[in-house]
């Protein structure tokens, strides 16, 4: 038993290095004066070491294939739910629905800078913010309703949402996935019957869609708020805008 002024929990915490410095000092002094306390602390040190070794010796089994597959499916389903449902999410909480993860480079393109950006590295020819010049992208923006995908240029365009800005411009958020890998999330607005990129975020990771890091979302949010982006348009409003082209 422990006949001292400190209870076992405190002596154990001392042995585990989990006490506040002040209390640790008091325990250390008491242990110096009283061999019974020192022995009690040693006992906790020893059991801590033994149990730690026992824990470390446990077999490090890989996940059974069956379980790993089920987990993958669950993750994919959750991701899908997250990318499909919020397309017309009400409220000001703008979120790109299908950003590829790990943003490589961010360029605010207000006014349409025709910059050339490296997507995946110097060995990979880069798409540029002139991406709207790629054949088919402007057409896809004219044609596709939010939530749908279409072949355009050397990849696929997915329209994420449509909205109006404060000054009445009709804008669309979309993702452009290059067949060769890599993708861009962009905001383009229609000006004089032509689409101009106002924002583009070059993202990495062509193998799958996923969540963007929160910092990237914040960047897009900030941009959307600076241009006074309104609520996502309803399907009807969007269709009316699209048919009113030219």
């Amino acid at each position, binding site marked *: 038993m*422990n006949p001292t002024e400190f*209870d*076992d*929990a405190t*002596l*154990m*915490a001392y042995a585990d290095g*989990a006490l506040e410095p002040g209390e640790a000092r008091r325990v250390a002094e008491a242990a110096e004066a009283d061999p019974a306390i020192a*022995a*009690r602390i*040693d*006992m*906790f040190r*020893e*059991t*801590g070491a*033994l*149990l*730690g*070794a*026992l*824990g470390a*010796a*446990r*077999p*490090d*089994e*890989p*996940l*059974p294939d*069956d*379980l*790993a597959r*089920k*987990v993958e499916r*669950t*993750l994919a389903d*959750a991701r899908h739910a997250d990318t499909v449902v919020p397309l017309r999410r009400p409220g000001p909480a703008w979120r790109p629905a299908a950003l*590829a*993860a*790990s943003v490589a480079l961010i360029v605010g393109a207000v006014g349409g800078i025709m910059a050339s950006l490296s997507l995946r590295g110097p060995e990979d020819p880069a798409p540029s913010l002139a991406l709207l010049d790629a054949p088919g992208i402007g057409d896809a923006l004219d044609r596709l309703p939010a939530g749908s995908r279409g072949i355009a240029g050397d990849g696929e365009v997915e329209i994420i949402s449509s909205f109006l800005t404060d000054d009445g411009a009709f804008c669309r958020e979309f993702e452009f996935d290059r067949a060769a890998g890599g993708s861009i999330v962009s905001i383009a607005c229609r000006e004089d019957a032509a689409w101009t990129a106002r924002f583009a975020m070059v993202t990495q*990771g062509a*193998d*799958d*869609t*996923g*969540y*963007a*890091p929160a910092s990237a979302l914040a960047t897009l949010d900030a941009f959307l708020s600076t241009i006074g982006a309104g609520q996502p348009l309803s399907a009807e409003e969007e269709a009316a805008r699209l048919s009113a082209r030219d």
Partner: protein
Amino acid sequence: MRDAFERDLVDALPRLRRFALSLCRRPDMADDLVQTTVERAMAGRSRHDPATRLDPWLFRILRNAWIDQTRRAATRGTEIDVADAPEAATIDGPRVTEATLMLQRTEAAMATLPADQREVIVLVCFEEMSYAEAAEVLGIPKGTVMSRLARGRAALASKMGIE
């Protein structure tokens, strides 16, 4: 492409499975618990504070799933078969060292402890959680974790003739 949450979640899966095995001692049931944990974690991911470690949060989900399941099992009258416990695998081989013997003795002594004491040992000594994190997993005060753990370790020491 996984985000940070999913990466941490996937990274924790072997630990979760090991914890599940320590609770139910049946591989098939442990796998179900891990799967349930992944489902609940993905559904409730907004409730995890990214400033805190993911492991204790996940362990708590798994443990609650285990409690749900045992409650259901109890009403069904299902027996839990302890015989094929994977942890009961013996450590042997041509060279049984002093250290190995000590581990075997520790394991044997630990097996005699009450379940609540074994549980805090698994979380703190095996999984290297802080007392506070173990308290979060178990949904009990930190002081209770500490006294339970101290009792368990003192009992272990006396069973093993330490001190």
